[in-house]
């Protein structure tokens, strides 16, 4: 049969953002794929060079609308490494609570989109409703619902609001009940399982060589989580498991993210219980030193890293942002070839695309 190219995007329900996936098909089977990105490039790295260190924090929030807290947190840890600042103990715990809440909210938003992609509208409405619980908590904590501007260089902007511990514990109890229900709902659906099991298999050596990180890597059987392997903030004191799966298919990626939400609930509960009292912020100097800083965190989508170069002024000389999904999407052809056009939605949805951080 004659081969032909199909453009899936830039306007396509599968893309969840502006990007284009060109697939070459032979009948229904994919023989080649070329992702095209850059539609949302805002020049954030250049933009940061003209702002002071503090002014950059709200910009890094805009990297990903799904998990803005982890990005501003990553930027703050990177600049703290440059300035050699020690963050107070309480701020470390507050940051753990905030970024784990963000991880749950981000995974729930992924699950909503994924359920919608695979034709389960009930999954979309349930998960978006329960995401509100955590968005409300983050609103109480930071004052914003999507782009929080909460971490600061040297701590966090302010302390926990009144009754935050009580509300969080209630939300966690509710969430664990709901997670159980999601598992029954999704895995009890024959269509959902048929579109997931055995689709988009990614071998572990391919995943490592192509630079895939985060849940997609752990779903291929490689147990690597920076929270465990190179603990930052207060993760050393937390007792949790790294979620892995050995199959490497779409179901494994779904399963790993579900398990991560269970573990995040455990981490938040421990962080609230162990939270010490004291200061939550130290004052950072306005000017950074001459030198470099390097930060690395486990973003909901993978390994997020930043590299900052300081020239002694109050502005970063150069800020390089490594987006996990930028590298993951470059591996899409390896995963897609050999499957059917109808599987593209499940495979690309299962990678949790976020174009804001991808294009920067």
């Amino acid at each position, binding site marked *: 049969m004659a081969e032909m190219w199909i453009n899936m995007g830039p306007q396509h329900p599968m893309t969840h953002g502006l990007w284009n996936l060109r697939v070459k098909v032979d009948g229904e089977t994919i023989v080649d794929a070329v992702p095209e990105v*850059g539609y949302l490039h805002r020049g954030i790295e*250049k933009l940061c060079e003209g702002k002071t260190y503090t002014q950059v924090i709200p910009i890094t929030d805009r990297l990903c609308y799904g998990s803005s807290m982890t990005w501003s947190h990553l930027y703050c840890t990177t600049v703290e490494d440059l300035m050699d600042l020690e963050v107070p103990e309480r701020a470390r715990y507050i940051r753990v609570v905030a970024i784990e809440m963000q991880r749950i909210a981000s995974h729930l938003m992924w699950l909503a989109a994924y359920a919608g992609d695979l034709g389960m509208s009930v999954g979309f409405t349930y998960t978006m409703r329960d995401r509100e619980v955590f968005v409300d908590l983050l609103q109480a904590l930071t004052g914003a619902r999507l782009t929080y501007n909460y971490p600061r260089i040297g701590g966090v902007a302010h302390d926990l609001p009144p009754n935050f511990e009580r509300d969080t514990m209630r939300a966690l109890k509710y969430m664990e009940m709901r997670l159980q229900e999601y598992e029954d709902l999704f895995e009890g659906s024959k269509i959902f399982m048929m579109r997931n099991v055995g689709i988009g298999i990614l071998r572990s050596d391919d995943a*490592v060589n192509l*630079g*895939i990180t985060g849940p997609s890597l752990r779903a291929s059987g490689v147990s690597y989580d920076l929270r465990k392997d190179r603990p930052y903030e207060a993760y050393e004191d937390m007792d949790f498991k790294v979620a892995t799966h050995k199959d490497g298919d779409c179901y494994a990626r779904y399963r790993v993210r579900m398990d991560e939400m269970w573990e995040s609930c455990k981490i938040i509960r421990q962080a609230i219980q162990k939270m010490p009292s004291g200061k939550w912020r130290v004052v950072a100097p306005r000017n950074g030193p001459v030198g470099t800083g*390097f930060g690395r965190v486990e973003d909901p989508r993978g390994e997020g*890293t930043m*590299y900052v170069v300081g020239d002694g002024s109050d502005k970063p000389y150069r800020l390089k942002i490594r987006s996990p999904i930028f590298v993951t999407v470059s*591996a899409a052809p390896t995963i897609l070839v050999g499957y059917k056009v109808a599987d593209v939605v499940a495979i690309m949805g299962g990678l949790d695309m976020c174009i804001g951080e991808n294009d920067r």
Partner: protein
Amino acid sequence: MSEGGRANSAGARDMETAPSRIDANPEDRVLRALAETFPKGVSDGEKVRPGLIRARVDRAELYSACRTLRDSLGFEHISMISAVEYDNRFEVVYHISSYGSRLVIELIASTPKDDPSVDSVSSIWGGANWQEREAYDLMGIVFKNHPKLERILLPKDVMYHPLRKDFKG
């Protein structure tokens, strides 16, 4: 009894000063292996903090140093490739991590302003492919032997490299 105790403590002291104990620390082991394999190519190796080491590499030996890092020292994942412009040079900074020993090495290759080019490492790590294209697109570093060195974030007909300091929006 007392003699035995003396012998034990002397043995412990010998252990601490024995040459093999230097390499008990994974950071030092990697730095020493790099310095021994590339006596001219790799310089200024230092341990920045636990888990992060830094070294400068001559761009002529960058490819073979990277191959040694992956094949013999277990650095199987390339985290990030950054390009930085300074007054008299460009620097391409590779952050390469190891899943086994949990280390990150920051490998810095300098290239002159009039010939900003280094060897591509995308045949070693597939994950370097798009990151090198991005560095080419935004900073204008040419990666030799790259399979498809094209612009990735900006349109193909753009004539400038916006992250260079002489580019004013």
